[in-house]
Each structure stands twice: as C-alpha cells, then as structure tokens.
C-alpha cells in the first residue's frame, strides 16, 4: 500500500514538475509581490502608527477605526469622492464618443489618410509627465500660449487649472489630446465588421445614424465593454493630476483632488500608512463591485480556448 502511494506520488511529480518549473517565476512572483502584499495591506488597514525600526515593522492595532474615519471623520473625502466619480463618469464616455468620430473620419480610403492616423496617435506616445508639464505651461494664466492667443482676439484670460470652477473641465479638454488611442481600437473594430452588413443596410436606404445604431455599435460591443472595464479600473486610480495640478496634485480648493492622489498623500506625505491602506481596500472593493456589475450586465467574456 505504501509502495503504491509513493510510486503514485513519483508519477505525479514526473508528470508535473516541468510545468511547475517553467511556471515558478510567476508562482513565486505572485506570492511575494502580490498575495503577501495584499494580506499585509489588509493587516495595515486595521493598524495605526506603522513604522520600520531597524528592519522591524511596528504598529498599533486599532480595529476598524481607519474605515470609520474614511466615511465619518475625514472632511476631504467628500470632495475627493465627488471629483473621482465625476472624472470617471465624464472622461470614459467622452473619450469613447470623441475617439469614435475621429475613427470615423479616418476610416476612409482617401490618399494620405494613414499619415493622419499616425498624427492623431502621436500624442499618446508622449510620456504623461511631459504631457502634464506641457499643458500646465500652455494653460498658464499669464504666460500660457492659449491665454496669449485668446488675449490677442480680446478674450480671457482664462485660469484653466488655476481656478476651481474650470480646473476639472480643463483636464477633460487636455485629455482630448489623447483620443488617438481610442481611435485605433475603433478602427480595428470597424475592420472586423463585414462590409456586407453596411451594403445590405444601404440598399434599404439606411443613413449614417441608422448604420451606427444598428450595425457599428452592436458589432463593437465586445471592444466597448472590455474598454469600459479597463478604463474604469484605470480611471478610478488616476493620479495624473500630480504632474500638473497645483498644491501637490490637489488643485485649487481641492478641485482636482483624486482618490489615488489622496492615497499617495496619506501614505507618503502624512505617514498615515494604515489609513492609506484602508483607502486602498475601499477602492479595491468598489472596483471589484463595478467589475462584477459590468460583467453580469453583459454576456460577453471569452479568454481563449483551452488546449
């Protein structure tokens, strides 16, 4: 009986060790750089006064106080949540729609149209930190090129990022610069839709609007859904305001204060590591809920076939 077991174990090892060996980098990596940190993060979120002394972590257990603080005590949170929600709700649809029209414009066979596609995509290749530097410079109230031009025709000056009323809208305006990425996705979605659908619709006298609603959008849903999910996950963690907003990324009157910037400030500028971890966990739960909601309201998801 014992011999049978050990030979079974040996057989199991013989059959599986190569796979595990190749997979080892990932297995170790997930454990050390993902799972252990996730558990640490949960533990830290229940503690306060987290310090590292001579290589040892010391902390004080405070239960759920950090979580209570988020919703009941922290006066900044209201503004931070509103900013992040507005930013997510506006920028994702805005980008999808604007990039759709841009894709439509260059989805022709006109001569030289490929060059325009490259021009439109080029801003996406500029590093975010340079984008922030550049737009902060161009949007400057006194020396910015936009206000100089607007002043020339008797308008302005506009304060853009420097006024709490216009700061967030200016970010949306700035983001229009990067719609080339969405354009590429739309173009590939168009390419996957057979010409014959449009030809049939044209025979029935369908106009551009009808074709959009009845063919293009239904046939692109997988792309749209996947994009919405990744955009929501990405946008809720947006911390790009660090590169251009005043007051270390918070903007005037906290008008550009985003959730991820809040986490950064609590952890690294205020040394509230425990509180920052509880904020991160709330974000994780929210993202998880939104993802589940999006998946359950759509029937597509397909991760390749098993061999």
């Amino acid at each position, binding site marked *: 009986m014992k011999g049978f077991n050990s030979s079974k174990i040996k057989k199991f090892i013989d059959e599986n060790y190569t796979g*595990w060996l*190749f997979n080892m980098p*990932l297995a170790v*990596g997930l454990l050390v750089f993902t799972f252990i940190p996730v558990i640490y993060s949960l533990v830290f979120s229940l503690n306060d006064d987290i310090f590292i002394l001579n290589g040892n972590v010391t902390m004080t257990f405070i239960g759920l106080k950090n979580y209570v603080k988020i919703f009941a005590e922290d006066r900044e949170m209201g503004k931070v949540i509103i900013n992040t929600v507005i930013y997510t709700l506006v920028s994702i649809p805005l980008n999808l729609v604007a990039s759709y029209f841009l894709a439509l414009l260059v989805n022709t066979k006109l001569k030289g149209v490929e060059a325009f596609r490259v021009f439109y995509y080029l801003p996406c290749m500029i590093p975010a930190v340079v984008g922030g530097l550049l737009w902060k*410079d*161009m949007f400057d109230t006194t020396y910015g090129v936009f206000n100089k031009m607007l002043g020339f025709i008797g308008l302005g000056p506009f304060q853009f990022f420097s006024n709490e009323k216009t700061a967030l809208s200016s970010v949306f305006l700035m983001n229009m610069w990067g719609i080339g990425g969405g354009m590429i996705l739309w173009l590939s*979605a168009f390419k996957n839709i057979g010409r014959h659908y449009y030809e049939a619709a044209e025979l029935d006298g369908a106009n551009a609007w009808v074709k959009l609603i009845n063919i293009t959008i239904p046939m692109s849903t997988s792309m749209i859904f996947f994009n919405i999910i990744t955009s929501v996950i990405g946008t809720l963690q947006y911390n790009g305001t660090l590169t251009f907003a005043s007051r270390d990324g918070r903007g005037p009157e906290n008008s550009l204060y985003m959730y991820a910037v809040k*986490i*950064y400030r609590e952890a690294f500028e205020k040394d509230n590591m425990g509180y920052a971890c509880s904020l991160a966990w709330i974000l994780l739960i929210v993202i998880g809920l939104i993802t589940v909601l999006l998946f359950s309201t759509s029937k597509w998801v397909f991760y390749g076939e*098993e061999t």
Partner: protein
Amino acid sequence: MEAKSILLAESRKAKRNKIYSGGILYLIMILLAVILLFPYAYMVSKSLMTSEEVVDPRIKLFPAVPQIANYLTLFIETNYLKATLNTLFIILFNLIAVPLSASLVAFSFAKLRWKGRNLMFALMLGTMMLPAVVTQLPLYIIYAKLGWIDTLFPFTIPNLFGGGALYIFLLRQFMMGIPKDMDNAAKIDGASALRRFWSITFPLCKPVLIYVMVNVFIAYWGDYYGPLVYMHSSNAPKTLAYVVFIDSTDKDSATYKSNMRMAGGVFMSVIPAILFAIFQKQLIEGVIMTGIKD
C-alpha cells in the same frame, strides 16, 4: 440625345460633389492634425527660446535665434545625463528580464500539461484586475525591510518573476496559435521542454516579443510615479522622468527656466516617437490585442 447629356451632367455633378466632400474631409483632417500636433510643435519651439523670450508677454511662437545650446546646457549643467543613464540601466535590465521570464511562464501555460495550470492561470488573470495601489503601499514597507528604498532594485528584481500578467497573457495567446506539429515532432525526437522552448517557441514569438520590449521601454522611460514612491530621497538615484517631474512641479512652470524644462520634455518625447516610427505596426497591433481580448 437630351437624355444622354442629362446623364452626363448628372455624373459630372456627382463627381464634383465627391471632390467637394473629399476636400472638406481633408480640411477637417488637417485642422485636427494641426490642433493635436500644435502642443508638440510649441514644446519644440519653446525649448529653443532664450530665457527672456519665454517670459515675453507677447505671443511668441518661434525663437528669434534657435538656442540649440539649451540642450547642451541641460546635459552638462543639470543632472539629466546621470538620470538618463540610470533610466537606461533600468530599461536595459528589463528588456532582457521581462521578455524572458514572461515567455517562460507563458510557455508553461500554452505548451505544457500539468496539474494546477488552470488554477495558476485564473490566479494570474485575477491579479490583472487588482488595483496597483493595494499592493504598492505594503510593497513599500517590504522593500524598506529589504533595504531596497532609494535603490534601483524595486524597478528591476520584481520583473524577474514573470514580468507582468498582461505580457504573459499576450505571449500565451500567441503561443497557442503556433501549430502543435513542430513541438510534437521535437518531443518525439526526445527534445527537452527547455530545448523546445528555446529553439522552437521562443524565436517564433518574435512579433509579440517586440511589442513587449517596446512597451517595457516606453513604460520605464516615462515612469515618474514609481521613483516618486520608492526613490524620493534627495540622495537616491534619479530617473529621467522623475527629474522632469520634479522640475515641473518645483517652480512656477510657465516662467522660470521653462525653456529648459521644455528641452527636457522634447528629449523625453523624441525617444518614444522614434520607437513608434520604427515599430508602428507592432505597436498598433498590440494596442488592438490588449484592447480586444478574443
């Protein structure tokens, strides 16, 4: 006769309409290109201005005399050169580490059969949804315990362990598309898994590997947030993106030395633009691959 001439006139009219609409399309496309490329051109122009020109209250789109010396000053008098070398070191390490470790793992998912494979794959996909901020804070503590804060280790060592779920996923998808015949033939000839990986599968993954490498380059070239978290002490090694970040947030950016900052910005943007020009096809296919996963 009359009918024929009417027909001719109709077709001429249609042709003319087509030319008009084509002309309008070109006009819109050119206008949009000017709008989208203006910031870039403006950055180049401002980087060549003198310190007086950038604070001139009048509209100044071009420098009177292009100050190419600004770029020299940037590298000689500031810490840009050192920062660029640090950045290139990180990139060089990851250009080797990420493709290799990601494709080893992808090989185990695509070409090997073993118990636990589906579980590991599901776990990996699960981590793709995990917000980075959740792991980043405890990682800071872990790195601090290891003595990695203010060193380049947080930007190199972790990439030896798979190099990122997205890259593994893309490589796995590509490897699944490689016909099994070659692999099977090599297996019959007694080739080990490592040999089959190294001489058959890995070289065939070249298109995806190029995409992964270009992406690794661009990601680390532009990463200012990682250094902001893990290397922010004044005596820590600096990366280029971090130096540009600090320069742009330190002072009122539109005035003091903004020509120099723009020169830094141009330098930082030119490299990705060149990479894009060379690897346009792979990059666009990559955007599509990661945008539509089916």
